[in-house]
């Protein structure tokens, strides 16, 4: 595609947890769509900077932003940095940052529960709340929450993760209907088994349950996120798009 075909955007995008895996693929996909992208990371600064460098090599814009989204001040910090750095409102938010701390429920510790809920659900709420201010004013915006197939189909050992990811779906639906009349869409994407560091130890037995008989790629998830952030998806809101090779079907 010639460089001039990349649309100029009236705002910028923030992808949390974008130093690797699905988040990095989403950041690259949105940058290719012309969005200046904030590439958030918590610990993997080198990974985030590599994603930024890759985007810049393509002639697009990105910046690495360190912050632990579980920190209550992270939303203002990240949005402030993007609004002043790119001098534009954040009109696309991808709540992707997630952690897991697996254990069967009888062995699940309070800290396993709290840390996973804080990062995977509460942070998404705070970022969504902050994002809606400029989006309401702009009468435009796209939020995509990265949920999980385990919100829809039980996976032993992940009660905390599944509860957080199911909570994200409820947050998605409720917030979506609240702001739908302002041209803002909020959707969830529910990936199944995707080849990332997070799922590196997923057993072959579990993969055999996937109708597609293979794991997905971060790019296959990013393609769906890209669609949901596009103008073409303007009438899609409050939806959950599974990207799971048929696992939840």
């Amino acid at each position, binding site marked *: 595609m010639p460089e001039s075909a990349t649309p100029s955007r009236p705002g910028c995008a923030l992808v949390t947890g974008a130093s690797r895996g699905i988040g990095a693929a989403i950041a690259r996909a949105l940058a290719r769509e012309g969005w200046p992208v904030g590439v958030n990371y918590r610990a993997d600064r080198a990974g985030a900077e590599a994603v930024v460098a890759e985007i810049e090599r393509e002639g697009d814009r990105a910046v690495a932003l360190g912050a632990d989204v579980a920190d209550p001040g992270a939303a203002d910090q990240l949005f402030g940095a993007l609004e002043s750095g790119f001098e534009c409102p954040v009109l696309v938010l991808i709540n992707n940052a997630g952690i897991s701390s697996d254990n069967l429920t009888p062995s699940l510790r309070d800290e396993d529960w709290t840390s996973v809920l804080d990062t995977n659900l509460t942070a998404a709420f705070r970022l969504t709340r902050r994002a809606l*201010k400029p989006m*309401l*004013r702009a009468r435009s915006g796209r939020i995509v929450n990265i949920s999980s197939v385990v919100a829809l189909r039980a996976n032993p050992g992940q009660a905390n993760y599944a509860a957080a990811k199911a909570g994200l779906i409820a947050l998605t639906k409720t917030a979506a209907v*609240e*702001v739908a*009349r*302002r041209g803002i869409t909020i959707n969830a994407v529910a990936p199944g088994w995707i080849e990332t560091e997070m799922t590196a130890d997923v057993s072959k037995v579990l993969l055999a349950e996937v109708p597609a008989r293979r794991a997905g790629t971060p790019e296959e998830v990013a393609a769906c996120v890209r669609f949901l952030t596009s103008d073409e998806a303007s009438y899609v809101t409050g939806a959950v798009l599974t990207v799971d090779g048929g696992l939840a079907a």
Partner: protein
Amino acid sequence: MPAVTSEQVEARVIETLASFGPDQSSITREATFEELDIDSLDLVELAQVVEDEYGVVLKGEDMKELKTVGQSIDLIVARAE
């Protein structure tokens, strides 16, 4: 911060409400939000404008009590003092 005048607040509130759709001439102090077809999301946006401009934080429970344009102006002026 210098105290804001009631006239300044009134002008800003009317301008903001007009941006939500109703005809500016219909936005009087006596007009109710219901008559103007100003909904709860509009009031959330109004509260953001007020917070940004006057540093006055209007909570959800404050907004629920407001029925008329005049009531909202009076509340903002009182809080800004």
